[in-house]
């Protein structure tokens, strides 16, 4: 099956098994290894990317259902040699990144969530992170950093 889609703004064509998980297309075909394949069953969130503006687990998205879709992975969140995405920078500044395996997924889930919910409560942030597991750091520190980022962003806007 041949599928055409855009990945990080570039047109891409995939030919192969329609049940190939998107994460494998990103990592093996496009060498976008920021997206991590960890549990492969939708529990850990390390493979989270945006598809048509929605944060989804790329391990569970068959490429055959993505004809015409727009995929954004962690690599598109900054230019590489430029500054990090503000949320990624805030998490790094708060020193909540440990091994880094979960963080691309965390950033993809939370950036999408904060775009749609600009003034969340702490409970809202925890609910949004429910599908992103981190085995290194305390979740509370991650939530602290997100709330600080939200507070700073609101302060800048007002």
């Amino acid at each position, binding site marked *: 099956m*041949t599928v055409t889609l855009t990945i990080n703004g570039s047109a891409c064509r995939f030919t192969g098994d*329609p*049940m190939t998980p998107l994460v494998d297309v990103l990592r093996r075909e496009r060498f976008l290894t920021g997206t991590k394949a960890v549990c492969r069953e*939708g*529990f850990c969130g390390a493979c989270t990317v945006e598809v048509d503006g929605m*944060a*989804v687990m790329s391990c569970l998205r068959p490429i055959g259902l993505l004809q015409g879709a727009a995929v954004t992975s962690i690599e598109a969140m900054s230019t590489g040699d430029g500054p990090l995405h503000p949320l990624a920078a805030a998490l790094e500044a708060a020193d909540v990144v440990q091994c880094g395996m979960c963080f691309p997924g965390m950033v993809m889930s939370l950036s999408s969530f904060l775009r749609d919910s600009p003034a969340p409560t702490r409970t809202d942030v925890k609910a*949004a992170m*429910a*599908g992103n597991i981190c085995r290194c750091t305390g979740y509370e520190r991650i939530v602290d950093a997100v709330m600080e980022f939200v507070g700073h962003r609101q302060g800048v806007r007002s």
Partner: protein
Amino acid sequence: MTVDLEERSLMLPETVEGALAARLDGATILAGGTWLMRAPLRRESITRALVSLQAIPGLGDIAIGTDRVRIGASVTHEALARSLAGIAGLEAVATAASGAANPAIRRVATVGGNLCTRDFAAADLLPAFLATEAIVELRTRAGAEQLPIAVFLDDRARYLTDTLLVSVILPRNLVASTHMRLPLRKAGDYPVAILSVARDRDRRLRFAVGSVEPVARRWHALEEALAPDRGDMPLDPERTAALAASCNDFKGRDGPEADGWYRRQVLPALARRAAVALARQEGIR
């Protein structure tokens, strides 16, 4: 559109008739993919022919009327939760849709997939639909057919061989409902026991249990035990829990995330919580 591949094909028909024809030819229905994509982890193979309902117009729609709500098979959990939020009587379905799995799964997992995945015992929507006395709408070679969800679940394997589930209809005859789920850390995102409770306009109570047995079902023994109390509003939590313990006729299924006895054992506690939550719902009215 049909695209052939040497090893596997995925059809994306634009009509229900096209999808049904593919199904009758042996294709497996691919809904949101959250179950089928994990087949390799379960050491199961994925069939060579698949058919998706994604391109069929209307199956992703929710129509909210004064007497019923019609939900297309391709509606995602997230869309369902958003659409039903705040609708009196349908709290159980809204809660089931908003609490299942995790946010990213809810954005792609569909109502049809949840209802038609026979091996998934922990589906949140099933007990909620059972308590709501939902109707499933099937498309067969002969035309459309509507069935109570309990009838569909009783013989799901047979229905799914030659029919396509196209929508679910929720009658709007409930005054309040609630949905309780018990997650465990080692069970990940799956609840080890689920209890949905609804009260209709005649004050009749309906209880449905999921994840305890292989297929969700109504808890008729508890409904009958509570029948003399139907005029009592709110439901007494302690009495409900006591009756739930004495009417516990479930045979818990053993699984890697919980033993069968445990799933069965927690039901009275869930019944108590559900009675409290239902009373809260009724107090708001």
